[in-house]
């Protein structure tokens, strides 16, 4: 819950981004999930570390050139089953529904009108050369992807240069690395997808005179085709990164290295709407434009020294280091409207009258923040005869987000031990295990708050007040300062067993982990008065997360022509909120309400109880539906389970907090993935599959679009079907168990079939490969929504009215937003050529 939500990505030892390396350049990827392994990386390693090693030139002194390209198209994998024009007319003819949506005489598939079959292409050229003393890599990449929705696209052109050189008899090693990318894109407004779903299927796209058909007097309703066609936007981004690493090995056993990195990201964007857009036709904007930009500069310096020594069978190594990282971020934006003409788009934004009229406040903005992170770390590793292994490390960090706090330093120790059982004397005669290793570890990583200056008293410019005839902006304290704020800590204990048997034909690892997050950072409710505000960011509570991960790989078949490689990953996870109070903050209740649902519901969605699991949906439990036409107040209305467990009729139901109960859980209990690679002579086939089991999803799409009281918008085909076969629903939109569905699924994701040309017969081509692939190929699930792989974070709740939205991330999983647009299936064909 702190600032770190993402894992640390290291590219050849330098912190970076997955965007910075083309997939074709990756040699290997290692993932460190183990807390003790990640602890040395400090707060950045809290969510795990992904170590990417890029391909290097070999020692054969040959310069190789590799060109790879692929092209792909996408289709929508699964759509909502909304009414078509024909279906709606049939329902009206059968008197199943009245004509709240006026029949405008046409038949339109609105989703089809705003989507297309997007085509994407990617080209990559990599030159690798050198020898063991000096080697280099240079690559260029061009990626042009069309978006599924009209006018959306993403084009990237990037280049990477990497060079290694060793001098003085390998005593001094230098690495220089530069990466630069230039990106141009136009995004997609998810509101247009929502409008496409809601639009009247009998409405035409255009009027006979060629203008867009609109029904703008309807609330929150506008033609999505017009929205897309009468607006334009573009975002440009440039990212440049330069790294240098110097490694000195002055004497045997001693290695000193220094890493310097500078990266700069710049963005500028623009967006405009013409005078035919709904914003003018309905809201009187008379043309609209906005533009802005942002810049983020990161500087990193890391100094480490490592000393290794071996005495007899004892091998030691000691590492010490210092790390400094800083970030400068700025952004600026402005918006304007009321233009004399809309033909200049956002390129002459000063022509708009809104800013110069002085009638509006807040049209021009800028922002700046600077942060830094400082750490000292040390690590000792020891092994005896490669059989008994021990590692201990500690990292002390301070972050500027905790400036002014009493405990701004965080200490992150880790210790782990391993026993390579297979190397023991008593194991030398057995033939089963080729490799068997037992490991156990404990590590602490931390996370700091994402906002700055939470520990100290702040004043800010707030609401306006009329003072002696003029409006002035008041200056008020903006938060409850908490000088006791400190690092959120994740303490992880891990026991694992790695094994390999049958001469490497099978192997795997089993891990048991227990993660406890202490000092959870959360906006805790406090009484006001005496506090300035009724929420304080504090470290409160303990959240526990434990489970088992089993990873197996085996080669069921291997012979001269055919190899079959298989990998299975299984994990199970349980989590529990262990406590919610500490010595400073106590509640008399043992729960927190989490998550938020958009209008017209406007309440929380999950409840996190002490002793309970993360992800419990909290709402009303549906028992039945009123089906007695003579009981007009309850006919077609939900019958809920009351506080005593007995059914309560709708007109008697209080809709209070006590009437809610746990109606499902959004976090899967089990994850399973099964990946297979087949090779037959020159053919290769790879299939990845995965699934998640024992969890529920809140199908908010059905909640909104299956409710016939919303008949002024388009609805799902089954909205007028009687609920439970008894009565058509008359209740308003409510968050209840009828819309909580099991989300269990099995997905066959990536299928790639390739053919390798080992001997091409052409003189200069060393090897080549062509392949076809599909992504998101099949899914087997009972879930009625678009895709059961729902993001763990509910990012789409917005409030129309002043309902306080509790900011959460990860604590309200499983909400399948009604505005989430469809996932796609991708088909691609590609070619790699090595010269």
């Amino acid at each position, binding site marked *: 819950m702190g600032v770190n939500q993402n894992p640390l990505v290291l590219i050849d030892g330098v912190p970076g981004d997955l965007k910075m390396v083309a997939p074709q350049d990756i040699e290997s990827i290692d993932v460190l999930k183990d807390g003790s392994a990640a602890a040395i990386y400090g707060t950045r390693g809290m969510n795990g570390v992904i170590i990417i090693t890029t391909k290097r030139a070999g020692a054969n002194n040959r310069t190789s050139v590799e060109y790879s390209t692929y092209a792909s198209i996408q289709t929508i994998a699964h759509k909502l089953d909304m009414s078509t024009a024909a279906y709606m007319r049939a329902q009206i003819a059968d008197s199943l529904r009245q004509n709240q949506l006026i029949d405008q005489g046409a038949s339109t598939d609105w989703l089809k009108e705003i989507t297309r079959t997007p085509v994407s292409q990617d080209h990559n050229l990599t030159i690798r050369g050198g020898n063991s003393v000096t080697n280099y890599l240079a690559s260029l990449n061009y990626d042009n992807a069309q978006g599924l929705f009209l006018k959306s696209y993403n084009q990237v052109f990037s280049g990477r240069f990497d060079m290694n050189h060793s001098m003085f008899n390998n005593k001094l090693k230098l690495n220089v690395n530069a990466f630069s990318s230039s990106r141009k894109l136009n995004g997609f407004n998810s509101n247009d997808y929502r409008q496409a779903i809601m639009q009247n299927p009998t409405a035409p796209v255009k009027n006979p005179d060629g203008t867009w058909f609109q029904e703008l007097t309807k609330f929150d309703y506008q033609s999505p085709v017009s929205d897309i066609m009468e607006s334009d936007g573009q975002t440009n981004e440039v990212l440049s990164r330069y790294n240098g690493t110097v490694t000195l090995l002055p004497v045997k056993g001693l290695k000193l290295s220094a890493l310097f990195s500078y990266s700069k990201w710049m963005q500028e964007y623009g967006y405009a709407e013409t005078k035919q857009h709904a914003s003018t036709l309905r809201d009187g904007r008379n043309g609209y434009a906005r533009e802005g930009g942002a810049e983020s500069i990161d500087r990193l310096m890391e100094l480490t020294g490592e000393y290794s020594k071996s005495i007899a069978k004892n091998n030691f190594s000691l590492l010490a280091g210092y790390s400094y990282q800083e970030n400068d971020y700025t952004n600026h934006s402005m918006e304007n409207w009321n233009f004399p003409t809309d033909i200049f788009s956002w390129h002459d934004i000063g022509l708009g009258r809104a800013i110069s009229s002085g009638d509006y406040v807040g049209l021009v903005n800028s922002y700046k923040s600077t942060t830094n992170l400082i750490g000292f770390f040390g690590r000792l590793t020891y092994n005896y005869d490669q059989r008994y292994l021990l590692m201990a490390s500690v990292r002390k960090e301070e972050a500027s987000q905790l400036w002014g706090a009493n405990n701004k330093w965080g200490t992150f120790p880790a210790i782990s031990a391993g026993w390579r059982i297979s190397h023991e004397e008593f194991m030398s005669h057995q033939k089963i295990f080729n490799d068997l290793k037992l490991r156990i570890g404990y590590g602490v990583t931390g996370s700091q708050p994402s906002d700055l200056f939470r520990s100290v008293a702040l004043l800010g410019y707030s609401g306006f*007040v009329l003072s002696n005839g003029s409006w002035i902006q008041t200056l008020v304290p903006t938060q409850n300062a908490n000088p006791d704020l400190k690092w959120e800590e994740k303490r992880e204990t891990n026991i694992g067993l790695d094994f390999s048997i049958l001469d490497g034909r099978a192997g795997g690892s089993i891990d048991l982990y227990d993660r406890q997050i202490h000092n959870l950072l959360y906006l805790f409710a406090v009484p006001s008065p005496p506090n300035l505000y009724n929420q304080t960011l504090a470290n409160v509570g303990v959240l526990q997360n434990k489970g088992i991960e089993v990873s197996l790989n085996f080669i069921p078949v291997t012979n001269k022509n055919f190899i079959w490689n298989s990998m299975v990953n299984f994990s199970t996870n349980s989590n529990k909120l262990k406590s919610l109070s500490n010595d400073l903050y106590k509640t008399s209740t043992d729960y927190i309400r989490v998550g938020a649902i958009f209008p*017209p519901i406007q309440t929380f969605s999950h409840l996190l109880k002490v002793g309970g699991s993360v992800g419990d949906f909290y709402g009303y439990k549906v028992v039945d539906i009123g089906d007695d036409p003579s009981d007009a107040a309850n006919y077609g209305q939900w019958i809920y389970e009351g506080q005593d467990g007995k059914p309560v009729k709708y007109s008697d139901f209080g809709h209070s907090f006590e009437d809610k109960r746990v109606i499902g859980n959004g976090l899967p209990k089990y994850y399973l993935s099964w990946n297979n690679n087949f090779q037959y002579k020159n053919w290769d086939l790879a299939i990845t599959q995965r699934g998640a089991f024992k969890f529920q999803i809140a199908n908010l799409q059905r909640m909104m679009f299956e409710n016939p009281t919303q008949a002024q918008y388009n609805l799902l085909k089954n909205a007028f079907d009687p609920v439970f076969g008894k009565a058509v629903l008359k209740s308003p939109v409510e968050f209840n168990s009828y819309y909580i569905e099991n989300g269990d699924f099995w997905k066959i994701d990536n299928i790639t079939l390739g053919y390798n040309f080992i001997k091409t017969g052409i003189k200069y081509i060393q090897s080549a490969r062509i392949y076809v692939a599909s992504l998101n190929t099949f899914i087997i699930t009972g879930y009625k929504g678009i895709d059961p792989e729902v993001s763990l974070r509910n990012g789409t709740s917005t409030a129309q009215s002043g309902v306080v939205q509790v900011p959460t991330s990860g604590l309200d999983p499983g909400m399948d937003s009604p505005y989430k647009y469809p996932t796609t299936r991708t088909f691609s064909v590609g070619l790699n050529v090595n010269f």
Partner: protein
Amino acid sequence: MKKINHSIKIWIITFLSIPTIFLACTKLKDTSYNQIISSEFTPTSSELPALAGAAYVDWRGLLLQWNTVYRAEEVSGDEMLTPARPNGWVDGGVYRRIHEHKWTTDDDVVINIWTRAYQGITNCNRIIYEVQSSSIPVAAKDTASLIGEMKLLRASYYWMLCDIYGNVPIVDRFDVPAGYLPVQNTRKEVYDFIVSDLIDNIPKVTDEVSTKTYGKFNKWAGLTLLAKMYLNAQVYTGTPEWEKCKAVCDTIINFANSTGKFILEPNQKNVFVTENENSKEIIFALPFDSKYVNDWNSFDVHMQTLEPENQKTYNLQSSPWGGVCAIPQFINTFDPDDSRLTDNFIMGQQYTASGDSIFGTMGAFVGKPLAYRNYVPGVDQSEEVDGYRLGKFEIAMGATNRLSNDWPLFRYADVLMMKAECLLRTGDANGAAALVTQVRERDFKSDPAKAVVTGVQLLKGSSYDYGLRSHLDSTFEGGADIQYGRFLDELGWEFNQEARRRTDMIRFGVFTTKSWLSHSPNGDYRALFPIPTTEIDKNSNLKQNPGY
């Protein structure tokens, strides 16, 4: 070997000394670019209005933002309701619960009024503390009046808490000891605290009525508040204070008569137009300006009451949300010649700004004329033409989703009516009738005789046709049995839509005893709102109000 060891030592020492240099580099970034770090800030006198004005801001949110005093006072009463509309307005049943007096202890309305009122109180206490400890630079001659003004403002926040919840904690200091949790007081203790703070501090503030004191608590705003406390004393404490109320009203009326600073506007509408800051009927207002007060929902009565199609009537910058409307039984109490009926309510066929008829787009009225009619089937269902809409506050052409009309919290007509009520309740019905007639004169210009009310008429019951009146049920209770019911009607005709109906209905014994539209009485304990469960969760000193 020795040589190598020596080299190692040199290298290690050299290397370790590098970070030692950088150990100095443990300085964290400490510059804030959008908020001021308090410890580095020393205010000057030019910042005084910005610092001291902060406590007034919270009143706007307390009165008008979403699900707050306005809803609690009006949607719970017999003047207006928010029925389920074809486009929504169910929001988990909260408006229906307010109408049926079935609100829960954690409904938004219950939570918001508490948090917003106490936000204002905390700001007042903080500013008083900062002035007394000289953290805010105030000239010595102004200190007493500024502290006095803050205490009057604080008393006004406590007035809302006293009226809505009754038994709330009194916190009158900012510098409380660590670990302090407020202790709950009784309603009478809160009333006594408010009255004594008002009496002590009214003499300390200015009696000037000008642009300088507009929107701020001066002597007259303080006196009007004191009169309101005395008017409702019997409800708050059990002991009526009609004579004291009358005396305070007389002080204000004498000032108005002798200086002409407060008058009755010749048109009631003048008090509620967009540019109403110069109205001499206003004694204390909450100023609004859509440019500067731009929180979402800061003042959006027009968005809540008009249907989306009305966007074209006023060329509004966004579509209204269509919901709140007047209860037909209330509209039926108006004399057809009372100009307040047409001035305060939007009814009949709706037109665009250029005069074209507007048609409905939802439910059963798709394609049919959008003409608001005085009929509502029930709180559980309605069409988009049902119910007259709220039009007391002028809706400016081209308005955003926020109005710029100032909200008149205290106005001169109220002072006259408060005195009239006290006269009526202490046996002088004729004296009361004369004042009521004075207030009514501007509303019966087409038939001046109808403006006249006699003492005998004023002693009668209410003409409100109380009883259930929905598509499910009809009962007939009537209002003839209400003591001084006619006066309650006069209050309704003059002060509807001004966020005070519930308070008036309680004072006349009607709020928890009569039925209207879909509402049946749900218990006398409902005259008080419950203490929010979220607050009891945080502070174990708080006990829930009886009945909940």
